[in-house]
Every structure is written in structure tokens, then in C-alpha cells.
């Protein structure tokens, strides 16, 4: 059964990874089916290029297929590790391409993406992915603008502390501490949102 998003189905993923170790390609296909949309969404957000984003995502899954031992369980569940590796892969590519002119019109990009898609964006999302998305999105919106801006430059732009300091005109020390404070504040906001949702 093909999933539309990423399923926090750790026992299923672990079972598939075990099958993968025995050379079962259907297992990596199933993992790819489960997680490709979330991974592609992230890759496209960073690279703004459907072809490059697809290549980046598929490269990560091929790495898992080629060497199942590359999944580091100390980094958490497979979905968490996967998104982290996709992020790193895309940032590396982005940094290599830095300096080339890249248009960044979100609306136009989204339209192009929809046109290229196999079908219209799914109306049904995995509930888990949707809730996770909603929660972190709400938390980010509650973050002070300056901290959010720096986190976006860092996480989605792949800029180093020095590059962020240059782009924003802020002192290097301020950039480092605002990024750290932003992450910690985000953690507090997420915890508050979780508490609110329990009321």
C-alpha cells in the first residue's frame, strides 16, 4: 500500500530495514513509498529545483539500499534520520551551487511542482505527518521574527554563522547566541503547544 506522507511507523520501518539487510529491494521500495513525499518536500524547499530535489532524495534512499548499515539508529527513528540526511545532502548541493543565480518565487515554484506531479496533491495526509507539521509550524510562527529569520537562513539556506552575520549585518557573536536562543525558545514553545493541546 502506498503512503502519501511519512508514517511514524517505527516497528514497520525497522522490519523493512531488516529485510533490506538481506537484499530485499521491495523493502527499500516500501521505505521509499512511505517517506518520499516528506523528504521531497524538504529537498524542494531547500533546492527549489524539482529535478535536483528528486535526485537528492533518491540518492539518500539508494545509499540505504547500497549500505543498510548507513542508517544510524543513535540518531533516532528512521524517518528522523532520513530527513536529517536529506537535509545535509541538499545543503551540500546548495553550497556547491552558491553564486549561481537561482530564482526563488515560492508561488511560481509551487505551481510548477503541481504541474509536474503525478497527480494533484493528496487531500488525505497521514494524520501523524499533518499534526507534526502543524505543531512545528505554529511554534515557528510564535518565535520572535529575528530568531526565526536566522534559523531559516541557517537551516534552509545552509549559511554558516559568518555568512549569516555578513548577510544580516549582525555581529558574529549575536548571530550565534540568537540561533541558540531561537532553538531553545522553539523547544519551549513546542512544549507549551503540547500542553495546550492536552487541555
Amino acid at each position, binding site marked *: 500500500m502506498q503512503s*502519501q*506522507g511519512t508514517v511514524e511507523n*517505527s*516497528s514497520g520501518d525497522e522490519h523493512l530495514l*531488516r529485510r*533490506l*539487510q538481506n537484499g530485499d529491494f521491495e523493502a527499500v*521500495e516500501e521505505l521509499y513509498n512511505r517517506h*518520499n*513525499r*516528506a523528504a*521531497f*518536500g*524538504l529537498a*524542494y*524547499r531547500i533546492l527549489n529545483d*524539482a529535478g535536483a530535489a*528528486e535526485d537528492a532524495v*533518491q540518492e539518500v534512499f539508494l545509499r540505504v539500499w*547500497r*549500505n*543498510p*548499515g548507513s542508517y544510524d*539508529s*543513535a*540518531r*533516532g*527513528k528512521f524517518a528522523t534520520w532520513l*530527513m*536529517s540526511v536529506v537535509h*545535509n545532502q541538499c545543503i551540500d548541493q546548495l553550497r556547491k551551487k552558491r553564486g549561481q543565480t537561482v530564482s526563488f518565487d515560492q508561488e511560481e515554484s509551487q505551481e510548477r*511542482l503541481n504541474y*509536474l*506531479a*503525478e*497527480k494533484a496533491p493528496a487531500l488525505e495526509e*497521514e494524520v*501523524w505527518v499533518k*499534526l507534526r507539521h502543524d*505543531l*512545528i509550524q505554529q511554534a515557528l510562527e510564535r518565535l520572535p521574527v529575528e530568531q526565526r529569520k536566522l534559523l531559516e537562513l*541557517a*537551516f534552509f539556506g*545552509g*549559511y*554558516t*554563522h559568518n555568512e*549569516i552575520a555578513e548577510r544580516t549585518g549582525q555581529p558574529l557573536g549575536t548571530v*550565534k*547566541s540568537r*540561533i*541558540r536562543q531561537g*532553538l*531553545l525558545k*522553539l*523547544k519551549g514553545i*513546542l512544549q507549551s503547544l*503540547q500542553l495546550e*493541546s*492536552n487541555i
Partner: protein
Amino acid sequence: MITITHDELQALIAGYALGILDADEKKAVEAHLPTCTNCQIDLVELRSITDELPWSVEPATLPVGHMERFRDKAKTFSPEVISPQPQPLRSLNLAAQAPDESEFEQASRKRANRLRPGNRSSSGWRIAYAAALLLAVTAGILGYLLFDTNQKLNSQDNNVRTLAQLLASPNLKVTELQPTGIGQKSSARLLTDTKTNQALLVSDNLEALPADKAYQVWLIGSDGKPQSAAVFNRDAKDGPAVIALAPPGSASQYKTVAITVEPRGGSFPGPSTTPFTAGNLN
């Protein structure tokens, strides 16, 4: 490799979690992490947040034909068929002393699986997600500490066992203690289980004390009265401190944790010196 201070390294941990350090900085942080429990815990805490950032992006459908392209690419690879790999934690002596964390993980998976679509309300999903988030943090902390520092902690078997239990707890609370004065560098983390009342102090930069001195941990309630929770000595040869606390009554009643230097054996009924590091529990 560049030479930088511990404070400067600590300031880079967030950048490391985000993956934005340059090569020299990254090397310095990676060389430092195995030697510093506090920074390891710091990294795990920060990563618990950076791991959520990818989910702020909407999932998107890949272009038409992506599955065929994926299969074509896969044909050029032959997988390395390998026998099942041992889990990193289970290969360590210390892991044998740790509680069966898989029981906790199994319980969480069962809990999460019960909350599949159609079985629970939206708030139930949020609760399950919150539990999964905390599991990721604590499992990560356990992984880092046991994997990298097990040799140093081996001499404190009982406390390490408690540490492993604590880190696997869904009720884990981490409080950071900060220096109270300019020029003071010592810091520590207090890990508490809000349900079982277990509490551990973890620090790896407490200085060695003369033989006639000792560190004393205080918990202070809303009435301002400090209660002694532990007295311990530090030798020059000691590694990171992992100290079990025995707070009178429930740990949740206290507002502040602090550490002082006292005469050997401790000071009673209250501290005789000013705390050099402290943290707010609430």
C-alpha cells in the same frame, strides 16, 4: 585544527546541530564532544528541535515517473548483504547494566500504534506525538552518553544504572545550572524523573577539591529553606560527576537547585558559603 575555549565550543553546539559549522569548527566540536557530558546533553537537546524543523515543510509529490527512475538507478547498485548489525548500545558493557530500553520503546510504539487514524481524536494524536518527541530526546541522550563516556562512568555503576533509567523515562526533566558569578565556569545538569522522584546531578567540569572540602547540593523550596540533597568529593583523577540526589520529599516541591563548597562531610542545617552554580527548577 583551531584552538578555542570551552565557552566558544559550547556556543557552536547549536550551529553543529543545524549543520552550519565550517570544517574547522566542526572538527573542533567533534573532538570535544566525547570528552564533555554537558555538551553531549546540550547537543541532544538542541537536536531534538532541529530534528523537528524538516517537518515544518509540507510534503510534496515527486514528478511523474519518479518511481521508474528510482528503480533504474537502483539497478546500477548491488547491495552489500550483511548480517544483522549489533545495536551500538548493546555491544557495550555498560549497556548490559542499563534497563531494557526496548521495553520502553515497545510501549511507546504500542501507544503510538493505538493512535493510528480512526482510533483517536486529534488531541490524542498530539499527546502521542509529544510522547514520541520526548522518547527521541531521551533515547538520543542515552545513546550519546553510553556510547561515548561509558569508560569514564564505569566506576559509578549504580549511578550510571540510575542515569540509564532516568534517560529512558518519559517523565525526564533537565535543568541547567549556571555559574552564579563572573569568572566562574562550573556548570552542571540536574536530571529528574518527575514521577519517580529520581534525581541525578551530572557535570564534567567540577574542579578537584582539597581533602578537607566537599561539594554539597541544595534544593530550595518556595519557603527559601535549603535542604541538603547530596554531599560528594572530587579528586583530580575523577571523571565526570554523576551524583544521585536524595531530596527530602518530592523533587517537584523545590524551586531552585544550587551547589556550594563546604567542609568535608557537608554543612548543616544550611550552606556556609554562597552557591557557585544554580538553576531554576520551575
